[in-house]
C-alpha cells in the first residue's frame, strides 16, 4: 500500500468492462492508488473515490448499462454518492449512472448510427465538480471519445433542470471553445459531453479522460480531470 496520504480510487470491473485497467493506470500515473473492485461484491474497500469505467458491461445487451446498474456493488456506490463521495462514470460508466438513476438523461445511438473513435475538444462549463476543480470554465481540453451510443438526450424538464442548474460539465466544441455540429461527434443534445448531479460529486462523461493522461499514447487533456478527482478524493480522505 502507498503512504496514507495517497488517495485510493476504486475502479469497478463489471463483466464486459474494457477500460478498467486503463483507468487504474491513469490513477496511478497521476499519483493515486488504484483499487480494483468487482461488480458482484458489496465492498468498496474504503476507497476515497469510485470510477465506473468504459466498456460494454454485459455486452450492452438489453440496453447500455441497464444490467450493470443492478449489480450488487451499485447499492454501495449509491450510498457512497449519497454521502458525498466522488463518483466518475466514463462512457459505459456514464450509461450505468444514468440507468441507476444517479444522473439524469440517457445515452442513445450516435446520430451517424456508427461507432466513433477520435480525439475531440471539450469546453469546460463548470469547475464545481469533483473532476473539474483544477479547470476553468471556458477552457478547452483534448480527450478522445469512442462509443456507438453516446448521444446524450433528456426530457424537456430534465434538460431545463440540467441547463438552469449548471449541471453540464463539458460540451463538445472547437479548440477555441465554439460549439457546433462539426465538433459534435454523436449528435448530443446541446453538445453535452458530460453532466453532474446537483451536488457535483457524481459526474458522467462520454469522453475518456483516462486515455488522455499519458503523452506517449494520446493527448493530455485528462490530466486535469484526474488531478481534480484525486484532490477531491484526498479531501474525502481527510488529508
Amino acid at each position: 500500500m502507498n503512504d496514507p496520504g495517497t488517495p485510493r480510487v476504486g475502479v469497478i470491473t463489471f463483466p464486459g468492462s474494457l477500460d478498467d485497467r486503463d483507468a487504474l493506470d491513469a490513477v496511478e500515473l497521476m499519483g493515486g492508488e488504484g483499487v480494483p473492485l468487482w461488480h458482484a461484491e458489496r465492498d468498496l474497500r474504503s476507497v476515497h473515490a469510485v470510477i465506473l469505467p468504459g466498456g460494454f458491461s454485459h455486452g450492452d445487451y438489453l440496453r447500455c448499462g441497464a444490467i450493470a446498474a443492478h449489480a450488487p456493488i451499485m447499492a454501495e456506490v449509491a450510498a457512497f454518492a449519497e454521502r458525498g463521495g466522488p463518483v466518475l462514470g466514463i462512457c459505459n460508466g456514464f450509461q450505468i449512472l444514468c440507468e441507476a438513476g444517479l444522473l439524469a438523461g440517457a445515452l442513445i445511438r450516435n446520430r451517424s448510427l456508427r461507432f466513433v473513435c477520435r480525439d475531440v475538444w471539450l469546453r469546460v462549463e463548470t469547475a464545481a465538480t469533483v473532476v473539474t476543480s483544477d479547470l476553468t470554465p471556458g477552457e478547452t481540453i483534448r480527450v478522445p471519445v469512442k462509443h456507438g451510443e453516446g448521444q446524450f438526450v433528456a426530457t424537456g424538464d430534465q434538460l431545463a433542470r440540467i441547463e438552469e442548474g449548471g449541471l453540464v460539465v463539458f460540451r463538445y466544441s472547437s479548440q477555441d471553445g465554439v460549439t457546433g455540429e462539426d465538433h459534435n461527434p454523436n449528435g448530443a443534445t446541446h453538445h453535452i459531453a458530460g453532466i453532474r448531479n446537483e451536488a457535483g460529486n457524481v459526474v458522467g462523461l462520454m469522453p475518456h479522460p483516462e486515455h488522455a493522461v499519458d503523452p506517449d499514447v494520446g493527448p493530455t487533456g485528462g490530466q486535469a480531470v484526474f488531478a481534480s478527482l484525486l484532490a477531491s478524493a484526498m479531501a474525502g480522505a481527510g488529508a
Partner: protein
Amino acid sequence: MHRELGLIDEELEAIVERLGRAPTREELAMYAAMWSEHCSYKSSKVHLRTLPTEGNAVLVGPGQDAGAVDIGDGLAVVFKMESHSHPSAIEPYQGAATGVGGIVRDIISMGARPVALLDPLMFGPLTQERNRWLMAGVVAGIGGYGNCIGVPTVGGEVRFADPHSANPTVDVMCVGIAPADRLVTAASHTPQAGSLMVLYGASTGLDGIGGVSVLASATLDGSAEASRPSVQIGDPFAEKLLIEASLELVEKGLLEGLQDLGGAGITCAVSESAARAGLGAELDLDRVPLRDPAMEAFEILTSESQERMLAIVPPSKLEEARAVCRHWGLASAVIAELVEGETLTVHHHGDEVAAVPARSLADEGPVYERPVAAPDRSNGDDPTFRPFEGEIREAFLAILSSPDVASKRWVFEQYDSIVQGQTVAAAGSDAAVVRVPGTMKGIALSCDGKGRFGALDPYLGAAHAVAESARNVAVTGARPLAITNCLNFGNPERPRVMWEFAEAIRGIRDACVALETPVTGGNVSFYNETGESVIWPTPVIGMLGLLDDHRLRVPTAFPRAGLAIYVLGETLAELGGSEFSATVWNSVAGRPPVLNLVEERALLDALQAMASEALLASAHDCADGGLAIALAECAIEGGHGFAVRIGGDLPPHVALFSESASRAIVSVAPEHEAALAERGARHGVPCTRLGETGGPRAVFDGLFEVSVAELVDVYEGAIPRLLGETA
C-alpha cells in the same frame, strides 16, 4: 453422401483403407471437415513447406495456432492472420465479426493476451451499391466485435478492385503478448492420459454446420444465399469473458493444453489435441452443453458455434479450473478424457458412433501436388512508355482521391484503436506501434497486399508485399522480425491459380530470406472466385517489427516547418501496375517495378540506423502513387506544406508517380543533413535532397502547387463523397 460433404471419391477410398471398413455417418462428417481444404491445407502444403520458418527469434513456427517470436525481457509476441472472406461475402456483419472472434481465440489458445487487431480488406469499387453495403457491413462487424472485447484495432488496409466485387477479401490479424515461459505450446505443455478435456464458453448450436467444408472450401455460386445458415453468429461479450477466463487458467497453471474451437468445431479441437499428445480420446457427446437437445451427433461434432474453448486439465485441477470459469460466468463441461492408444472414440446416447485414429483426422489428410500452368498471355503495353498529355496537377489530385490512396478515416474511426492504453501510433502511420507493457519496447505492425502487382506478376506481387510491409515497419525505426500471412487466391483445382500460388510462395520465400523475416504461420484462403470472376492473387503479409525504445519512434508526417526533405533510394521509370496508370488510364498493365532485395535490405538497415540516432524528424514509405503522393500524405497528416524540386531526366509524370520500390521520404533538421548523407553512403542508399517543409502549400517547383487545405479536402473527402455523405 461423401460428395455432399465435400469429399471426393479418392478421399473416401483413403478413409476406407485407413479404417479397414466403411466409415459411419459421423466419421464421414469428421473426415470431411478435417480433410477440407480449410483445415488440411491439402493443396498448399507442398508449397508452404518451402518457406523459411526458422530464425533466432522464432519461438513457435507454423503448425500451431499462431506463431511466436522472442522480443527479449522474457516476453513473446504471438501473431497470426486469417481470412473470413467467404462468410463475409454472404453476411458481411457476422462474417467479419466472427473472423475477429476466431483469430482472437487463436492467440488466447497460445496463452497470450491479445493486444492488437489489424484488418486488411479488399472490396469491389464503391460506385456499386452492393460493394458499399459489403464494406459498411464488414467494417461495422469488425468494430461491433473488436470494440466490445477490449482489443484495439490499430491498422490494416482497405483496397478496391473489380475482382473483389464478387469476392470481397476480409483478412484479420491478431497480435498477443505473453511471458515466453508461459506460452501454451506442444513443447511446454504435455497432456497425460487420464487428463480431461473441458469445453467452456458458449453452448453448442446449429450454427456454422459445414462452415469449413461447404463455405470456405468451395467457390461461391448462385446458391450463396442458401449458405447463409452456415455463417456463424458472434457474441463478443462471451469472447471477452473467454479471454479473461482463459488467461486466468493459464496464469494459475491449471492447464496441460488449450485449444480454440473454430473450423470443424469439437472434431478439430479434440482430434488435434489428442494427436499432438500422441494419445487417443474418449469423447461423450451427451456431455456437450447444447442449445438444441435434438442435435444429431454429426452436428454436435462439426458445429462451429463461436466463443468456445477446450482446456486439457489434470483431474486434480478440475475443480479449480471450473471455478475460474464460474467466476467469469462461463459454463464448462468435461466432454472427453485422454486415453492411451491412438483412437478417438465418440459416444452419443450410449452408442459408439465413431472410432478413428485421432492422428488420421488431424495429421494424415490428403496432400495434393496440383498441376500448375503459367498463363499464356501478355501484360499489355507497359504504361511507363505511354505519352502523357494531360494536366499533371489534375492527375495528382485524381490519384490523391482514388479510394486506394484516399483517407480511410470513414473506416478506422469505427474501430476503438486506443483501449488498453498502449497505442503509440495507429491509422495515419505506415505501421501501427503498440507499447509492450512493463518495458520501453514497442512492436510495429503492418499488413500489406499488392493486388495489381500480383495480377501482373504473382512472384513480384508477393515479394513486393513482403518488402513493403518490412519498409512500413522500418520507417517507424523498428527492426522487421518475422511475418505471418494470409494467402488469398482462386480455385486451386485450376492450374492457372495453382501456378499463381506457387509463384507467390516463391516470391515470399525469396523476400523473407533476403530480409531475414521468417514465416511463423499463416492461413490459405482458396476458392475466392465466382463464375468468371477470380480475385487477383493477393498474399497479404503481416509484418512484426520491434522498437527497442518506443520513444524513438519516427512519425510518418512532417512535424514542423524548416526541415530538409530527402528521398532515400532511387526512382526509376516504372509505371507498370501503378496507381497512376490505374487512375488516369484505367489500365492495369505492364511489368511491376523491379525489386532488388539487396537494395531493400540496405534501405531497411539505413532507416533503423538513422532512427536509432534520432536523426529523422519523419519517415514515410514511398509506394502507391509514388513520390508525389507520399509527399502529399506527409503534408496532410502533419499540416505542414513543402516546396520541392524533382530533378533528373524522367518525364515529370514518371518522376512523380513511378512506384519504384525501396524508397522512403524523410525529413531532417538542417543540423542532421550531413549525418544523414554519411549514414546513407555507409549503407549504400542514395539520399537525394528534394526541398524543405513549411508554408501553407505543397509546391512542386516548375510543375504545379496545391494548398494543404485543398489536399486535406480531396484526401479526406473522397470516400465520404463516394458513399454519398458530405465530407
